[in-house]
């Protein structure tokens, strides 16, 4: 069915004719690379000794790529490439602004830390069943979601990361994992299906799936189309993915069941993809409709953050406590989306970056505490301060950071969000952020007092199940943890550059002019 050669067809009407500059390939490189690396490692899955080494070098390359992408976006503005060179909105566009680039970079840093940690945490069976290939495939989904400029494509990346996360969740096939995975899998699948429902309606209304195109048309359409329904559906779908109250309970039911390193990855990355999608849809695509939903989002934010910390206060298991803290952090991020002022969004984005790093590090710390004390229960742990003083110091830094106490990275976004809520005159939002910080301090303070400070209980704990028996090799397990702790300390002491970046990304979200211009160069006003 090939067209006869020589037919004078002017393809510039339908296709991008200019060659993409070499640097623009960085947009697609991390995603394509992750898929290829995942496939390659899948073929090498029997070489269990070789896997971690290859994977760590592979993840270093991923960090380099996303760092390059971040530099490229910072220097050249929003970058768009369109698949198949079809002119947008017909081709699938990948558009990266600062928000997407910085999240992709942080995500790949965390993946590197988890890859290093997994060399100790995941045994040979886990490697043979594909931990590292699944890690790369999940990263393809996560980074794909951060860089895509097409809303149906966003759905596809959600499903890519979801199916890879199912594989990681049940690695080991223990009874607890099957229980947790059943709830995790069913509820997440329902959430992405609601996302697909919303996208089906969106296509029916707009006739386009390109986010820049939707952003343009939504501003013209105003009240002539049922956009409030759409915005509410997206809020439900992504709220469920991000684990916001009242659709948060899949998270505490499942995040403590997989291997520690898998929990660390999930806690760092997956809920933040939901927050990212909320930022994209609520702030960039449907700002007018978000204004109408603002009070609802604020109430959801307050309930999520308070109930999250109350849940954490009620837990004995170190990992289950952390699961509730993840939920509480989501509430804090939602507060910025409820405000939608430049300052508030900047605080939300900063908090998301902080939470990616600190929640991952906290799960790693829980895993190490369990190896030292042979239990995840804070009632049975004890005396870690006396026996492992460096590890105790690292954990204390993380506890202070997650509570939002200076001088660590959790302090600044909370301070910014409190100021933004007071500026907007919503005192109860500011108050609940502060109360959340207080309750979180109590929850992690209790972990510190019982698991670290109190002398060890002499009675041996019963059934130390799911705890790897490998001896602790300090260098390999400490390295990723120290790296992440260093990041939270550095951005706590010197937050200025990151604050500038988050402010710029918040401005880009609120005024998508540059995003639209990067997709449709000639349509710009």
């Amino acid at each position: 069915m090939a067209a006869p050669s020589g037919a004078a067809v002017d393809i510039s009407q339908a296709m991008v004719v200019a060659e993409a500059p070499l640097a623009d390939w960085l947009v697609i490189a991390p995603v394509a690379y992750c898929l290829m690396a995942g496939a390659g490692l899948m073929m090498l899955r029997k070489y269990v000794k070789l896997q971690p080494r290859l994977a760590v070098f592979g993840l270093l390359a991923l960090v380099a790529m996303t760092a390059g992408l971040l530099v490229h976006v910072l220097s050249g503005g929003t970058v768009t490439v369109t698949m198949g060179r079809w002119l947008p909105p017909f081709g699938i566009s990948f558009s990266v602004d600062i928000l997407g680039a910085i999240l992709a970079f942080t995500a790949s840093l965390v993946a590197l830390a988890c890859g290093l940690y997994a060399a100790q945490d995941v045994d040979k069976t886990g490697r043979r069943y594909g931990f590292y290939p699944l890690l790369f495939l999940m990263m393809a989904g996560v980074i794909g979601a951060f860089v895509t400029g097409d809303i149906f494509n966003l759905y596809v990346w959600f499903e890519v990361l979801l199916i890879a996360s199912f594989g990681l969740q049940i690695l080991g096939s223990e009874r607890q994992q099957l229980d947790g995975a059943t709830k995790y899998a069913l509820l997440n699948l329902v959430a992405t299906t609601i996302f697909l429902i919303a996208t089906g309606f969106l296509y029916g209304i707009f006739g386009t799936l390109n986010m820049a195109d939707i952003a343009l048309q939504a501003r013209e359409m105003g009240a002539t189309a049922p956009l409030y329904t759409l915005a509410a559906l997206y809020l439900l779908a992504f709220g469920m993915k991000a684990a916001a109250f009242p659709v948060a309970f899949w998270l505490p039911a499942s995040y403590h069941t997989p291997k520690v390193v898998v929990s660390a990855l999930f806690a760092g990355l997956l809920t933040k993809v939901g927050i990212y999608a909320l930022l994209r849809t609520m702030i960039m695509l449907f700002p007018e409709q978000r204004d109408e939903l603002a009070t609802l989002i604020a109430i959801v934010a307050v309930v999520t953050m308070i109930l999250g910390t109350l849940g954490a206060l009620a837990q004995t298991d170190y990992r289950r406590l952390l699961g509730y803290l993840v939920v509480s952090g989501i509430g804090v991020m939602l507060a910025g989306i409820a405000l939608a002022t430049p300052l508030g969004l900047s605080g939300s984005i900063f908090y998301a970056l902080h939470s990616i790093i600190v929640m991952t590090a906290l799960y790693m710390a829980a895993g190490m505490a369990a190896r030292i004390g042979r239990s995840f229960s804070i009632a049975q742990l004890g005396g870690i301060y006396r026996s492992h003083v460096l590890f105790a110091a690292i954990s204390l830094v993380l506890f202070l950071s997650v509570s939002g106490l200076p001088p660590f990275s959790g302090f600044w976004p909370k301070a910014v969000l409190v100021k933004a809520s007071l500026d907007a005159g919503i005192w109860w939002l500011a108050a609940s952020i502060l109360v959340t910080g207080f309750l979180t301090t109590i929850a992690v303070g209790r972990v510190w007092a019982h698991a670290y400070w109190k002398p060890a209980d002499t009675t041996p704990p019963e059934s130390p199940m799911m705890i790897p028996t490998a001896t602790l090799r300090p260098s390999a397990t400490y390295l990723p943890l120290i790296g992440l702790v260093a990041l939270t300390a550095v951005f706590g002491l010197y937050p200025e550059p990151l604050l500038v970046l988050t402010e710029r990304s918040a401005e880009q979200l609120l005024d998508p002019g540059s995003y639209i211009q990067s997709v449709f160069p000639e349509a710009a006003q």
Partner: protein
Amino acid sequence: MEPILAVFVGALFTVAIYLMMSRHTIRILMGVMIFGNAVNLLIFTAGRLTRDVPPIIPAALDVPEIATANPLPQALILTAIVISFSFFAFLLVLGFRAYQELDTDDSREMRLAEPKDDPLPPLGY
């Protein structure tokens, strides 16, 4: 045709949500499957039902001459079908394994990860 399909999609959603509210994993799974199919039909309807010629551009032209059918909803549905089918296959195996290992398909009795008699956290130092 659209109103009929819209009502049908609504009926499918009703059935799916009713099944998903059940306590038993197998009914929830059937609900999920119907949910997925309802969404596919929804995209199909939302993409407008037109009885036009296939979207094939004559060899000498670069844009179609006459109105053609919109191929995009079908591409979307195809993607969604593949995804929901593979997820359903995974969930079916997961549900079966959970039934084998946990000895129940009642989600209320699946309390291994969150035990009912969980001890209180230490209240004093």
